[in-house]
């Protein structure tokens, strides 16, 4: 059996800009993967290529066991919801109906329930919806399609916190009943962290981190206390960041701490705070994990 998503050596050039630079990724479903990275890192390009909305410049892409380009059968088993999703000039209910025809696993009941959750007016023209409502419509389509491969690219622009929570709850509940492969890209990492089993971090078109979410969380620790105690505690271990305030010092130290470390910190009156997933990703995207920063390559 081949992986649900299999990508190797994938590159994409836009004129002289290299948006994806040799991405290799295997995803075996069912799973929820967080696809993380800064704006312009290449997340959207990768998702569009997986959904055959764009062609790679080079490399190999296989989704659900085969190529996706001009493969209508595979495309029906896949859904991509984009932040800037464009719709034809139709009403909400027409867009939902069209999606129901396209996706074989469509759940009309779930779509209806979610339209009610988000208070979407079925008779309103999509172009007259607010930004948040357009996002909500995309989320309805993304979840109710129950597509084997569900690509959600920053799906909640303009959604308020309550509506985002509805999204998380609906996605989790339906995923539990109907497991599938979900790729979710978001900047609200801590908020969505509980959903993710695995995180893939893209930076400058490259995968710089690919690991189980629980391994990344707490993978570094902020150590705060008197400057001299912090220095003694850290000793010759690597440090990502160091801040001083008078006699106080705070450092961020990569690596897992063991019980001996915790006991020592307590004795030395140091405060230890493991980094959240979001903080870890910020350090990783900031280049802390790379010893040498790769030079930006031009397209050939």
């Amino acid at each position, binding site marked *: 059996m081949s992986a649900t998503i299999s990508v190797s050596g994938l590159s994409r050039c836009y004129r002289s800009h290299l948006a994806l630079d040799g991405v290799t990724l295997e995803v075996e479903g069912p*799973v*929820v993967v967080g696809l993380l990275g800064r704006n312009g890192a290449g997340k959207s390009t990768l998702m569009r290529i997986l959904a055959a909305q764009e062609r790679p410049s080079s490399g190999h892409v296989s989704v659900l066991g085969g190529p996706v380009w001009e493969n209508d059968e595979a495309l029906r088993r896949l859904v991509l919801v984009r932040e800037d999703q464009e719709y034809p000039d139709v009403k909400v209910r027409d867009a939902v109906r069209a999606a129901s025809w396209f996706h074989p696993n469509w759940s009309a009941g779930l779509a209806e329930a979610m339209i009610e959750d988000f208070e979407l007016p079925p008779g309103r023209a999509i172009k007259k919806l607010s930004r948040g409502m357009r996002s909500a419509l995309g989320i309805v389509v993304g979840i109710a399609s129950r597509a084997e491969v569900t690509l959600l690219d920053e799906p909640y622009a303009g959604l308020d916190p309550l509506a985002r*929570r509805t999204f*998380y*709850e609906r996605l*989790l*509940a339906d*995923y*539990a009943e109907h497991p599938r492969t979900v790729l979710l890209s978001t900047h609200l990492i*801590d908020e969505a*962290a*509980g*959903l*993710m*089993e695995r995180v893939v971090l893209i930076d400058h078109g490259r995968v710089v981190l690919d690991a189980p*979410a*629980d*391994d990344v*969380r*707490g993978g570094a*620790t902020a150590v705060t206390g008197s400057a001299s105690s912090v220095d003694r505690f850290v000793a010759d271990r690597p440090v990502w960041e160091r801040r001083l305030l008078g006699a106080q010092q705070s450092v961020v130290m990569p690596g897992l701490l063991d019980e001996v470390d915790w*006991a020592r910190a*307590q*004795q030395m*009156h140091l405060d230890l*705070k*493991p*980094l*959240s*997933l*979001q903080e870890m990703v910020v350090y990783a995207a900031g280049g802390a994990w790379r010893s040498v920063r790769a030079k930006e390559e031009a397209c050939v």
Partner: protein
Amino acid sequence: MLDDGAPIFSQVADRLADEIADGALREGDRAPSSNELASFYRINPATAAKGINVLMVEGLLEKRRGVGMFVAQGARAQLLARRRRSFVEHYVEPMVGEAARLGIGPEPLLEMVRSTLALPGRVQV
């Protein structure tokens, strides 16, 4: 609800163990399923299942085929014994250390413990 900095599955396991130790989940009770935990904590069901698995490996939960997970006989006693063993390390040592930093001598410290025990509403030991 959960802490951001620690593995989620181990936090789920700790919470379940707390419930067993406190008697909220009694021996023979059905434990929440991974889907129930997933929707309660808003976490991935696979992560919740990993947390349940930790307690199963420790013999605190047992699987009854087709029905679900149940709190094993002796689970509470096992948890309480484990906590008693770590009580000195987790509570007494930090207290003694802080007392030393504050210059509280052994006799005043013991006196504080005694008077705290005598407070109304305290469980008598």
